[in-house]
């Protein structure tokens, strides 16, 4: 059966079937809904549905239309999605790009790719790209602001047997050409003056770096506390990038499980840092990026225990 989705208070509509998830239908029709893992893990695609009938993977009716995982939901009628501030002005499309820089810092590669002069590239800070290598897709956050020079920086952690990271480590070199879809995701900075708590683990620093660059660019005076966690001190990379953010109203906490340099690093977990330093986040916005477990822990901690408005919790979950 075919249905239609309408995004409330906008002109955007897209077609649905009962056999393709609402999220996949949107993406295939160029509707840039927020999402992360597409597997039901990260919660990045959660949204409220104002009206309509939804079913899950097993064909059962979904009773609650609040916080619906669109990647796991299918339409059983026309539906209306409630996504405040939805912006589809930047179109998602495929690009080719050439690797122009490939530096490796321990287990993290800093890869810069450049799209040809024949193309323009627009994205919002915090968004990601989806690389297609031999038919397999992998998502990586844009770690910089690429709109002007068409150079996109990606931070890629090496995983043993990781499909794409192995290619980066073993096959790709400067000059290699890759294909990707972009821009994706809605992990973007809200236009408020609320203080910011930014929490990331591993290469979750990438979109956070993009957000911080954006704040520098616009001369933001918002207070921001960046909490960045890694397993070991050596896992930190691009620490020199942080120098520039001294111009911001920035507080920095670097957390590692194994700490030797206690003057620079804390041995606390990122959640422990939050618990130790905050008792009320009611006027904050929280941006979390990294592994799904960390994100769930922070979501629970901040919204359940520290009074964070759940609408002010933004995340980008890495699988």
């Amino acid at each position, binding site marked *: 059966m075919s249905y239609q989705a309408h995004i409330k208070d906008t002109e955007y509509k897209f077609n649905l079937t009962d056999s393709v998830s609402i999220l996949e239908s949107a993406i*295939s029709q160029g509707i840039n809904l927020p999402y992360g893992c597409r597997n039901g893990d990260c919660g990045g695609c959660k949204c409220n549905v104002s009206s309509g009938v939804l079913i899950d993977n097993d064909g059962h009716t979904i009773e609650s239309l609040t916080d619906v995982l669109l990647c796991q939901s299918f339409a059983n009628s026309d539906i209306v999605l409630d996504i405040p501030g939805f912006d589809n002005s930047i*179109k998602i499309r*495929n*690009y*080719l*790009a*050439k690797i122009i820089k490939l530096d490796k810092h321990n287990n993290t590669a800093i890869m810069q790719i450049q*799209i*040809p*002069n*024949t*193309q*323009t590239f627009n994205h919002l800070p915090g968004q990601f790209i989806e690389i297609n290598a031999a038919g397999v897709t992998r998502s990586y956050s844009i770690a910089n602001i690429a709109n002007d020079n068409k150079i996109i920086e990606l931070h890629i952690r090496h995983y043993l047997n990781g499909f794409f990271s192995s290619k980066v480590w073993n096959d790709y070199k400067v000059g290699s*050409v890759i*294909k990707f879809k972009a821009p994706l995701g809605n992990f973007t900075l809200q236009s408020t003056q609320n203080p910011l708590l930014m929490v990331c683990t591993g290469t979750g620093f990438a979109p956070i770096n993009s957000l911080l660059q954006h704040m520098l660019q616009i001369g933001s005076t918002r207070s921001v506390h960046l909490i960045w966690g890694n397993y070991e001190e050596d896992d930190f990379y691009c620490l020199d990038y942080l120098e520039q953010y001294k111009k911001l109203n920035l507080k920095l906490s670097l957390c590692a499980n194994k700490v030797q340099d206690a003057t620079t690093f804390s041995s606390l977990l990122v959640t422990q840092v939050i618990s130790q330093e905050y008792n009320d986040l009611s006027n904050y916005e929280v941006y979390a990026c990294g592994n799904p477990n960390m994100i769930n822990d922070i979501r629970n901690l901040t919204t359940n225990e520290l009074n964070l408005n759940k609408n002010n919790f933004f995340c980008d979950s890495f699988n």
Partner: protein
Amino acid sequence: MFCYQCEGTQRNDGILGCNTLVGNCGKTAETADLQDLLLYAITGLSSYATVANKYQISKSDVDHLVMEAVFSTLTNVNFDPKRIEDYLRDVVKLREELKQKILDFASKSNTVIDLPTYPSVTFKPANSIGELIDQALEIGFDARTLIAGEDIAGMYGFVLYGIKGAAAYTNHALLSGGNIESAVNQLHDALAFLAQESTNLNDYIDWAMKVGAANYSAMESLDSAHTNKFGHPEPTQVRISNVAGKAILVSGHDIHDLEKLLQQTVGKGINVYTHGEMLPANAYPELKKYPHLVGNFGGAWHKQKVEFSRFPGAVLMTSNCLIEPQVAYKERLFTANAVGWSGIPHIKDGDYTPLIEAALNAPGFTSDAPEKFITIGFAHNTVISLADDVVAAVKSGAIKHFYLVGGCDVSTPDGDYYGDFARMVPKDSVILTLGCAKYRFNRDDFGDINGIPRVLDMGQCNDAYSAIQVALTLAKAFDCSVNELPLTLVVSWFEQKAVAIMLTLLYLGLENIYWGPKLPAFATPNILQLLESRFKLIPISTAEKDLARTLH
């Protein structure tokens, strides 16, 4: 999508080329990507065609499909993604059939044949449009720019666009019954060269010249086809004001369509008008004999939105240049041959019945407008027959200079340059013109020199062939090279037929050609430098400055 094949391409934001959802011509990104993929597949098919040609294995079906399919990718020809997809699948099907023919021949004749191994030879199109578009990304100009650089991509474009123009002329010649064998085999060779994705700039320069040669063959074939079938054009007064009655307007270049339509409208009470590049058809004896070919309506292609809206009858677009049909006339617009637009009826197999019915259902002109005429029909046969008078006029000093002012008209005021230039030409000079750029000045009265009209309309853009024959004849009469003649070429380009003609002129060694209005976006600074240094090509500036330069 990335497309920079025409003069009207996007030129801002630091990017030369259309790269958004819709190109400046109205072509969607989907159609543009499919056209890239089609051309890629054609390079594979042509690679086999070159082998088949070497062993004289029949391939006329391949020749016909390749010429029409390449033509469909020319600017303002086919906007219909379904038609482009159909061409693509036909090309791959014929490629496999031709490969089998070659293998069968090798087997039967006990011949060892090396088959080409370029990637496009084994390309398999995906099943869905979405997947096809994905495939297009990896073989298009973005990929070429990233891998080989902007200069190589630009020269690839130069060669490819020249091939497009030459294929269009070859297709016109084919439809008019011409012998296309030489041109089509040269074009297969050029397409097979593109399949190699060379990264050597000199290779592209060499092949650009070969495409110029191929286009000369194509224009020669077309000229022969037209003159054999319709007779040599003769000086003709063409009515440019409407006549009362039902009406059909025929635009584009394919004169054979006009002939068929004239045959099918005999006794129907319908007047047939030419439009745009079809104007020169009025000068062919075999077409002039139809009394219901009453004249020409309108001007150059880019005015069609207004002119078709005002035309109270049916309209046929036989070739480029189609632009987005408007509500006012889309119900009475028809396409033929390689032309297409989704939802616009397409004439197949030369049966114009639907078009004729649409004309009969339309109001037609209710009254005669006051008579107005222009004079056309000065193709090579007529002009060369005047050669003695012309030579005498030059020797006596009555004619001091010849200018060829013509080519494709553009849709912007930049094209005013050509009208301004023509009007500024001194009274002791003769202007040869062709293509639709002439509409910038062809209603003006330029007078004559000793009975020789000062403006000689040689015909369609492909009648550049006529201009070349006249130049060669004059050079022979004056015992000099063409470059030593008091002749200046001032050429306007818009689409790829003009690229092909430019390559022909360069191949023939003509120098100091003024070219505009805007230079091609695919001509990078390095390519431009090459064109200016090696071929002495001159970008136009202002009519005053350029004219003064020619007079020194």
